[in-house]
């Protein structure tokens, strides 16, 4: 028996517009633990599901700062503190010559932080998931648009929620889990 948050009803809709309307209807009925699945990013769908927390831009900024200033610090430490070499009286801390490597590391670490953040926030990698147990869900990566009413929603009731979904005229309703 899996936890309620891994159960519920999965309804399939015709297209992106029907899915968007269905999500808005369900939100209006007071459901909060909704997930929507589409074969491509549908504009406005994430916002319709509720407040969105997207910290990727912040992570990318932090990664860039870490990579850039970290490299500058390493270059400064190596050439001023750890192993200073006097080459014709030139300054140990040659900032202009430190910039190119720092620029490359800025981009590298910004990308690494962003990618790690995207995977972590999306809960990936996760090779198994109760939705993969629903045969019809295969279409989510082709032409299927789905809403999943999770059983951990305070308003969730096995019969009432099924009826709420059925009123939205979906193509099909399947049970997720247990």
């Amino acid at each position, binding site marked *: 028996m899996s936890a309620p948050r891994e159960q519920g009803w999965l309804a399939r809709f015709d297209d992106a517009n029907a899915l968007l309307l269905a999500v808005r209807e369900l939100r209006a009925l007071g459901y909060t633990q909704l997930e929507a*699945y589409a074969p*491509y*990013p549908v504009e406005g769908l994430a916002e319709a599901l509720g407040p969105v927390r997207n910290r*990727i831009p912040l992570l990318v900024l932090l990664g860039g700062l870490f990579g850039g200033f970290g490299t500058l610090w390493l270059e400064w430490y190596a050439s001023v503190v750890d192993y200073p070499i006097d080459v014709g009286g030139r300054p140990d801390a040659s900032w202009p010559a430190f910039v190119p490597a720092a620029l490359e590391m800025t981009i590298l670490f*910004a990308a690494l932080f962003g990618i790690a953040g*995207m995977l972590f926030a999306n809960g990936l990698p*996760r090779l198994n998931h109760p939705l993969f147990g629903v045969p019809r869900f*295969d279409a989510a990566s082709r032409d299927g648009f789905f809403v999943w009413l999770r059983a951990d929603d305070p308003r969730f009731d096995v019969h009432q929620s099924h009826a709420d979904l059925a009123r939205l005229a979906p193509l099909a309703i399947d049970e997720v889990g247990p």
Partner: protein
Amino acid sequence: MSAPPISLRETNASITDRVSDITLERPTGRLWMCAFALSFVLTAWLGAGIVWLLARGVGIWGLDIPVAWSFAIADYVWWIAIGMAGTFISGGLYLARQGWRNALNRYAEAMTVFAVSVSGIFPILHLGRPWFFYWLAPYPDRMGVWPQWRSSLFWDFSAIVAYLIVSVLYFYIGLIPDLASLRDRARTRGKQVFYGLLAIGWRGEARHWQRFETLNLLLAAMAVPLVFSVHSMVALDFSEGLLPGWHSTIFPPFFVAGALFSGFGMVLVLGIPLRRFFGLGDFITDRHIANLAKLMLAAGLFVDYSYASELFNAFYSGDRYEIAHAMQELTGAYAWVYWTIIGCNVVAIQAIWFERVRHSHAALFVIALLVLAGMWFERFLLIVSSLYHDFLPSSWGMFYPTFWDIAFLAGSIGLFFLLFLLFVRLLPLLPMFELRKLRARLDREAA
């Protein structure tokens, strides 16, 4: 408005089915097998060359004093340059919201990943003791030494490392939703497990998509300056040197233009046969090919301008060594290389001005091959022409390639095509989710 970038007959289902069937259902053709066998033989030749090089040292190449850099460095610059256009197509055209890019970016990114991987072989093997290549990286070692931060060679190293890692990850992240499509459509257990593992459980939830899209946008925005900086660093390897012909501030922009030029050439050389053999005419349309040709022409004109400016500046400077270098290029021992370059990179591309040529795929294929050859010769001449005639006549000397110089050039081409052929067989050739999104956008614009 010209034809839409994707046929309006296509639906979400048909896009997915047609693209994934190429990977999942289509039998491996005889042509693919022949191409694979040929690439494999060439790669084996490269492998033999590497073993021989490790045993005997870089002397197996025709390197000597004064020409201590030649084929290997030319190969390196040529390959990394080819990668640039792939990143530009997926990053730059994405930021510019060019819908037609969607059919091209997957194989262009694959081309980037493989070209950069192949290019990385050369500088490492050129080190003399390649097994110590990790000394290039800064790490706290027992010797207590650090890399030379002020050297353009270290800048170049950090640029290649950053570019290789970012382009591989960018390619892979963009693949994940399509790998999920293949996972869901695969019928044999082996394929389900293979694509299932690669897709790391992607399901397509709306908030996942949103983070994915934000990340893609940011990666694209970072990839474009990365492309420009990486090839500028490659150029600084030369322009920080004091040799006539190298010591010039024009090098970074000149190198970037040349990189995009040869990269668009390679995108055409790969795209025209792909489109034909896999029947992708509905996705990679005549318009795509013509647009690529125009981009190649534009980059080529910039390269041609650099050639003119290089000559002009040599004579205008009044510096006798710069003038002697320019005269050597035009009339010296390697003049045949120079005029080959002019024929390929200046004369041949002018045909693209004609609409008939832009719509003849055979003609564009030939021109793109000429551009690739011309750009290789340009890299070669750029390196050798400055080294073989520097300041003192007593230190002049010719370069002659050996059998192994040829082996590394041909072998690297073999390795590139080997990797590309594996990509064609195992991964989706077109980004399905981007095409589905593009389709939805067209519908919205029509409504």
